[in-house]
């Protein structure tokens, strides 16, 4: 089975994000970038599938500017076999990415598309679901465990209040949650090998899909600063404050 794994370049999760002074977005100039942590988990799972024999080829794909190539190199260094880079300078929103990925999925005909459940920059949590809809494939999101049998996959999902296990027919789209696995560090020999693995450059404009943004961002602000707490004299005052000031109880 061929596995297609989608990865996104985002701000490094350890970087403290700052809002641009004109409030149009967050500052990315001179900020450390890295592979989205959920995507790392997806790559790790795909590579483990290959190591376990349930997959025979892992293809990484990313959409974005030239620098996205570095993220694909990381995926290759972790163990992906080859990569597809959909090159565009345009702003990409989830539907646009899903449409681009559909083109690649149609060409590659993978048995499984695996990707992060969301990216830590915009936290949209939409691309996987949209891609499944566009492809007309089953989807299993928030995976914490995946098992393959007889052309289907048992996917354990983390849902409110517990775990749910779905059985999906393949091909399918699976999105990964944090507890699915712990991604490896790319090893030195694999970093060397990654350099020689092919990255296929595809111009987004040539893929024949509409990637124009559907959503407009009006303003980006820092979350409000946490205010100092206050002491209350008794439970009655606490209840009153929760009801009248915080308005969190009726």
């Amino acid at each position: 089975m061929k596995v297609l794994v989608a990865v996104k370049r985002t701000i490094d999760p350890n970087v403290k994000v700052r809002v641009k002074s004109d409030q149009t977005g967050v500052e990315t100039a001179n900020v450390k970038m890295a592979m989205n942590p959920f995507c790392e988990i997806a790559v790790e799972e795909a590579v483990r599938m290959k190591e376990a024999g349930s997959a025979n080829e892992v293809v990484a794909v990313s959409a974005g500017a030239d620098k996205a190539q570095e993220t694909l190199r990381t995926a290759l260094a972790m163990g992906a076999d080859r990569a597809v880079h959909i090159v565009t300078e345009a702003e990409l929103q989830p539907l646009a990415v899903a449409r681009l990925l559909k083109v690649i999925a149609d060409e590659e005909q993978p048995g499984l598309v695996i990707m992060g459940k969301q990216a830590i920059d915009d936290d949209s949590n939409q691309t996987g679901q949209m891609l499944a809809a566009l492809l007309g494939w089953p989807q299993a999101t928030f995976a914490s465990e995946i098992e393959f049998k007889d052309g289907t996959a048992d996917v354990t999902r983390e849902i409110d209040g517990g775990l749910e296990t779905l059985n999906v027919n393949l091909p399918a789209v699976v999105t990964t949650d944090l507890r699915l696995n712990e991604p490896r560090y790319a090893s030195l020999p694999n970093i060397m090998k990654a350099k020689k693995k092919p990255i296929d450059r595809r111009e987004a404009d040539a893929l024949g899909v509409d990637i124009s943004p559907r959503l407009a961002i009006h303003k980006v602000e820092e979350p409000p600063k946490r205010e100092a707490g206050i002491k209350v004299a008794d439970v009655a005052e606490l209840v009153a404050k929760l009801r009248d000031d915080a308005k969190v109880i009726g």
Partner: protein
Amino acid sequence: MVQTYSAPLRDMRFVLNELLDVGEIAALPGYEDATPDVIDAMIEEGAKLCENTLLPLNRPADEEGCHYENGVVRTPQGYKEAYKTFVDAGWTGVTLSPDYGGKGLPQLISMVFDEMVCSTNLAFGVYPLLTNGAAAVIELHAAEALKQAYLPRLGDGTWSGTMCLTEPHCGTDLGLIRTKAVPTDEGRYAISGTKIFISAGEHDLTENIVHLVLAKLPDAPPGVRGISLFLVPKRTLKEDGTAGPANGVSCGSIEEKMGIHGSATCVMHFDEAEGYLIGKPHKGLRCMFTMMNGARLGVGLQGLGLGETAYQSATAYAKDRRQGRGLKGAEEPEASADPIIVHPDVRRMLLNQRAINEGARALAYWTALQLDISRSHEDASVREDADELVQLMTPIIKAFFTDYGFEATNLAVQVHGGHGYIREHGMEQLVRDARISQIYEGANGIQALDLVGRKLPRRAGRYLRHFFHPAVAFIEENKDDPELADIVGPVGKALGKLQTATLVIAQRGLGDPEEAGAAASDYLRMFGLVAVGYMWCQMAKCARDKQNGDAFYDTKLKTARFYVQKVLPDSAGLFLKIMAGKGAVMAHGAEEF
């Protein structure tokens, strides 16, 4: 808040790609694949390992320490898993030749990575440091059969290595060692004796431990001319090359130490243990110096690594801790107090750490690049020049970096105040861990003697000229640049004084070696300050040329000025001390102490 560290990748990249040309590496034969993008990817991946795996282990392992029971040593909880992660990520055998299963990568990559390991878990780093050193000695000096038998498993981390020099009655003066090597029928040797202070002598990270042991053959000439080097495995090898039965090697106890609690410091007993000669009889010390020279650079990086963590931790605290108000009035009037970073004295401490860290990093990577050139360049004369420069810089990097690294950790405690002195924040651990780096691999006083007694006179001052010539030329070329004059000028003056001090020490030392001895430590420190000053001149020029609105370059120039105005002037005091000669040092009779 505990130890804060994120790998200073931006600064590392500045040194590697902007100040130096790391592309030179890929031009060296054998390193064609080590292109700048590959080096960058490796360092970034190494940074993740250090930040996410080694750093979280640093504090708990310090509290727990190693355990000894009936000859068995257990490393702190989490070490085994971290070691496996380290091995899986391929950070063993980094520079070892691919002929013996190594990765054949340049020293530079290894040294950049080592800096990050030292920043995040010095005690853990001791194990691979020694393995790399042992493998280097075997690769360079051992017979082919020994190389084939031992290097692949040292290279892949299955086995680890040690260096066994010190004995209960002798450390610095190895001519006094008593460990014996008696030839046996099969061309092997029976090794008997006791070695102390053996880092990683016994532990549970690897299935076999390869000891490199200094011992004396029955016909050994007295003193250092009679020392031979032997490979003594903890377990001898089976026919198939895997670790077999126990050899006569045992661990008698482990030391309770001031710091690096995760590193097992062992008393090792050799009881007619089977050993194999490395190199020629009685020439063992020379072979061991291969290990020691590499290890000395590695220990120098420990000073730099800890200095970096000290700086980052102190900075995070100084921005977070609110006490009192700025001296010119409240800077953040809406808050109950200002962060302590508003204070000139706190800034003085932070910038002292930072200015030396960044300058030392440049000096270390420059030296590492020379090390690779010295080993792999096609032109023999280029190799020789680079090797001589590395030899000159080795005692400076070892002693200067570790002295300042220790000072940097102390400053981190000071910035934290009482919170630095208690254990919780991990600052006092940095001080305790840093302290050993000034002692092992040749105490810093010995490094100073090495510089003054061996490196200065070597080839009529030729080693020195490898540093002085390019430094003088650079200063001449740039001293009239109006934007750089205030940086280059003072470094030029300090360099001039260093040359004067060099001549004076050489002249006085010729007639009276105690003159050289009395000046040695001050001279080494002065040399270090000037060498780092030379690095700051080059960094300032590079930053000035690149200024493009990126705040990094503006900050670099500010830090260069801090170094020149607030750190470098110490060299003037050292100059006066050197010029004063040995008189006041040697005036007391021993009974007056």
